[in-house]
């Protein structure tokens, strides 16, 4: 079940700016309510925040354009 939670967290990071900003301030605190195991928490702890920021911006930009589907 936690595999689905990991995907939910990623999807939320990409779409919810408040959640994303909270995550950049304190990952542990932001993910406290999620049922993750120790390895999953450690993996989110080591996530490159600059890559995450780029990805989040890119998804936001694509959502705002919305026209052609890109792959």
């Amino acid at each position, binding site marked *: 079940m936690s*595999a689905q939670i*990991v995907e939910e967290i990623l999807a939320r990071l990409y*779409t919810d700016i408040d959640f994303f900003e909270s995550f950049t301030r304190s990952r542990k605190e932001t993910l406290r309510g999620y049922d993750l195991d120790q390895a999953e928490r450690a993996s989110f702890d080591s996530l490159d925040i600059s890559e995450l920021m780029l990805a989040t911006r890119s998804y936001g930009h694509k959502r705002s354009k919305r026209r052609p589907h890109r792959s």
Partner: protein
Amino acid sequence: MAVVAVAVAVAVKYQDRFGIGWRPEYAASILMNADEIDIVEVISENFVNDKDRILSLKTLSAQIPITVHSVSLGLASSIPVKVQNLENMARLFDVITPDAWSEHFAFVRAGGYEIGHLAAPPRNEDTIQGTIKNICLATDIIGMQPYLENIATLVSPPCSIYSEYQWINKIVSASSAGILLDLHNLLANSYNFGFCPKDFIAKLELSKVHQVHLSGGKYIPNPLRPDRMHLLDDHLHDVPKSCYELLTFLSEHCPNNLTVIIERDGHFPAYEHMLLELRKAKQAVQNGREKKCIENKGVSNLLDSQS
């Protein structure tokens, strides 16, 4: 003479096809120059649930082979795919009977959050098993197995235990799915995460590769580390030379006929420019096929001389 013989041998052995992604900007040109392309790729989400558009697609499919590309199913996930979306696809397929269809090694939603685009899931056992189940369900409902495309990602997915090619190989080996290899996505990931794209191709399950995407992108700076650049796959630029080189390398090593599609999503050049890119792709494939043919011929000559 030998050069001609090799070219003939390639033509006899392979029936590679070349086409472009259908976009409204090119609709008239595609119809007027249908003899210059072998196949057109259409995005299914632009047609499902729209009777008029489906009818226009039916007209197009009567004139030129079509391959359908989907972007919103989210097959590569531990989360089950939405059956309704598959049923919508199946209804589309009842009308147009495409040559093939494809999706992505990506998830697009989770926990009620719609990303609105393709995202790389964790590369682990959970997503492998979830993806295999989704492929089975999609194949059952749509009636045709998909080709899945490697995606470009700007973030290395957390909770991963496999590299990208390992993860893809595990999924395609345990399912009916084939691979649509997007060479610019591969180029972007190899640049952004520091691996060799040819090594990736060499390790990929090439017997499963049937389709290829070519597109372009641009380099962007990292927002927090200006010294670091990233390659963004934006489909707004020409196919770079390095992509054609990868296509030659792939064609040399892949045993299957390839369907090569050039994608463009903006900054649309004249249609003639797209045809020029298509010719470059044909030449790149031809170069790879000929190289393989010559190498095989060398081996057979060696065997002949030993017998």
